[in-house]
């Protein structure tokens, strides 16, 4: 029988060991990415097109392709998320209907990313016959961003004090006018933050776009909506599969570092947007 005091010590030691291990894992991951990435990064690498299936040269077209797809996705998702959030927050008053809508959003949020790729492959590439198209990739990523953007916007709308709505109605504004003049301007920070967080996630996604929107090599600037582009995540995938070649691996680390820098950029933008765009009334 171990005494209670001894158990106390064992338990404390276990939690300390767990913390130590977690911190080691954390430090290893960040260290590996930063050290290996920093060795691979140079101005040439960032601004030159790739050669020899990516194992030589840079990643300029991959950066361009990734930004093109996610920014288009953001433009598609923004109006949908805004409209849906207004409807959810200002029009649906029935609790059961609210729950159902939230459930649909959470469900969409829980769908694995490869399933979005499968969905896009079936519906757009094959049934609608678009073939490989960066625009289809943008549509799919827009769908993936919707739950994040909607939830952030809805919660911003929930934060608007009731007197704002009561005053608007007292002045004779209709529900639509209230939404347009009061609700949307007062909750814009939620939409922008949600979209930026969605963008930060979308730009790192590989599985949804690998079958429907990207080409592993030889893709440049597309001249129409129905052409594939090269992207950073799919480029890393192609290079990781040639991991025996040190030059390819080096470029994979460089591309990973660049990708994480882009993710961090969108995340930081979201952080500042939340602070700067918050309406005066809610500060």
């Amino acid at each position, binding site marked *: 029988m171990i005494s209670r005091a001894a158990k106390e010590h064992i*338990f404390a030691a276990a939690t300390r060991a767990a913390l130590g*291990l977690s911190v080691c894992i954390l430090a290893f991951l960040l260290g590996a990415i930063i050290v290996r990435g920093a060795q691979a990064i140079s101005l040439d690498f960032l601004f030159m097109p790739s050669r020899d299936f990516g194992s030589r040269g840079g990643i300029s077209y991959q950066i361009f392709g990734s930004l093109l797809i996610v920014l288009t996705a953001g433009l598609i998702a923004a109006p949908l*998320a805004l409209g849906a959030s207004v409807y959810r927050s200002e029009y649906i008053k029935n609790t059961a209907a609210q729950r159902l809508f939230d459930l649909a959003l959470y469900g969409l949020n829980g769908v694995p990313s490869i399933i979005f790729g*499968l969905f896009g492959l*079936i519906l757009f590439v094959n049934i609608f016959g678009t073939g490989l198209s960066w625009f289809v990739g943008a549509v799919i990523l827009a769908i993936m961003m919707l739950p994040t953007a909607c939830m952030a916007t809805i919660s911003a709308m929930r934060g608007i004090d009731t007197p704002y709505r009561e005053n608007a109605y007292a002045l004779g504004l209709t529900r639509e006018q209230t939404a347009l003049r009061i609700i949307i301007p007062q909750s814009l920070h939620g939409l922008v933050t949600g979209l930026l967080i969605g963008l930060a996630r979308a730009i790192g996604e590989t599985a949804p776009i690998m*079958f429907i929107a990207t080409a592993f090599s030889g893709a440049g600037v597309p001249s129409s909506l129905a052409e594939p582009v090269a992207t950073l*995540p799919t480029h890393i995938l192609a290079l990781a599969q040639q991991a025996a070649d040190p030059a390819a691996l080096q470029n994979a680390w460089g591309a990973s570092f660049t990708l994480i820098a882009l993710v961090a950029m969108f995340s930081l933008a979201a952080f500042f947007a939340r602070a700067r765009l918050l309406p005066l009334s809610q500060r």
Partner: protein
Amino acid sequence: MDFTRPAPPSGRALRSYFLISALICAAICAVILITLLGQTGPVLSHNPASLFGTVWNPNLGQYGIIPMLYGSIVVMVIAMAIALPLGVLTAIYIAETRSARLRGIIKSALEVLAGIPSIVYGLIGVAYISVWVAKGLDLQTGRLILTAGLILAVMILPTILTLTEDAISNVPVIQRENARALGLYRHEVILDVVLPHARRDILAAGLLALGRALGETMAVMLVIGSLDRLPSPIFNVLSSGQTITSKLGRELGESAFGSAHFSALVLMGLILVLITLTLTGAAQWLINRRPNGVEAIYD
């Protein structure tokens, strides 16, 4: 020159815009399920009995999904067996030391980790973890079920740690004070009072992490070795394997649309999405449930 403001959109137009966007958002999930369901026909009419077999050989018309289902579950179990105790113990340390600075540092580091794309975890798996496993266990290849489980454990650790820490921090201080006043040791306070109080949120965190682990594709696909067979003996995690997601990632591009092969893959995808939706739904239900009885008094 006309300096008047443009006329605002009519109420009816605005209203229909709101309604249509809401309908699109609410319907997409169902549309995805129906689209997938619509493509499962060929394999179901072709040779449904072979689906429950252990042999995957499209050339012979055999589409046994058992090896993939097994792989998904085993990889998930390994990941949870490592990440759950590690995450919960670390969360206890962070929450109970009550050091705001430590908490802040770890929280922001975790947010960085959660933002690392899964393909980068895959690269780390290929470049480091699979090499270590191969060397450490003296095997020819490090692309094993075990390796996939290890990399997944690392990937779901931030999710478990953040959510569990929130759950533990949310337990009212009065609960701890009462337990301490009764003469309980610190570990007894945590194990017998704090954790039971936070159990629902911890369970929800576990379910969300399970869903993530099951749906993870890129990292698993790169390190699992892609072998469509059950390992022998059955619990040999030091053999290559295949999960549903890695199977989809490897073969969707190669199979012809509308073929039995393609529809077998879609069927696996449908099974996967139904499992993850159930897990997400259960987690959400746990989080949203209102506390009752004694807990309600203190919450």
